[in-house]
């Protein structure tokens, strides 16, 4: 069970700064959180997910960093159940 940082845009940065210290962090970008530039985690062990619906309706598919994995709500629930949720949304 790792830490799952659930972040949107308003003050998600506060969570992302903590995730940087966390060797087993997983980050889920939701809502306007998908505007966050995830390239900061390139080359780190942090795994970044984005909620697919939130990316699609904002027209961001081609703008999201390559190593971000798109997930649906079923997959999000599995991540929630399998980890500790650190809420920043």
């Amino acid at each position: 069970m790792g830490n799952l940082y659930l972040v949107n845009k308003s003050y998600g940065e506060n969570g992302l700064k903590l995730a940087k210290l966390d060797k087993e962090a997983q980050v889920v970008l939701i809502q306007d959180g998908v505007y966050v530039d995830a390239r900061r985690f390139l080359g780190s062990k942090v795994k970044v997910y984005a909620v697919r619906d939130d990316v699609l309706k904002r027209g961001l598919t081609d703008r999201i960093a390559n190593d971000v994995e798109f997930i649906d709500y079923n997959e999000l629930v599995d991540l929630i159940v399998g980890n500790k949720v650190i809420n920043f949304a």
Partner: protein
Amino acid sequence: MAKIGFLLTLGPFQFENWETAYKIAKAAIDKGHEVKMFYYLDGVYNPIKYQTFPDMATLPKDRFAELVGKGAKIIACGICVNARGLEKGKDYIEGVVVGGLPDFAEIVSDVDKLITL
């Protein structure tokens, strides 16, 4: 199977949080998990049963009624309800209960996971 708690502090329409909460909760219930929600602050506006909006096929209250129908437990903060003039939730959809922060404390004790939105 897990028990998942939700703390919702924003109302319907204005912000996206009610939608995200609904979608996660629905997916959770459909997978067999148990859902308990606490509506705090503007969150208490979500279950007003008279919502009507021609442009929207399914309203926030319908989404939450669907969750209640699937077994979700929903409690709204009474101080917040009364502050906002909702008169002890008399215009709420069926199944939403008006309680207090001790109910939230009980949800916190009870659930395995907690989502704030």
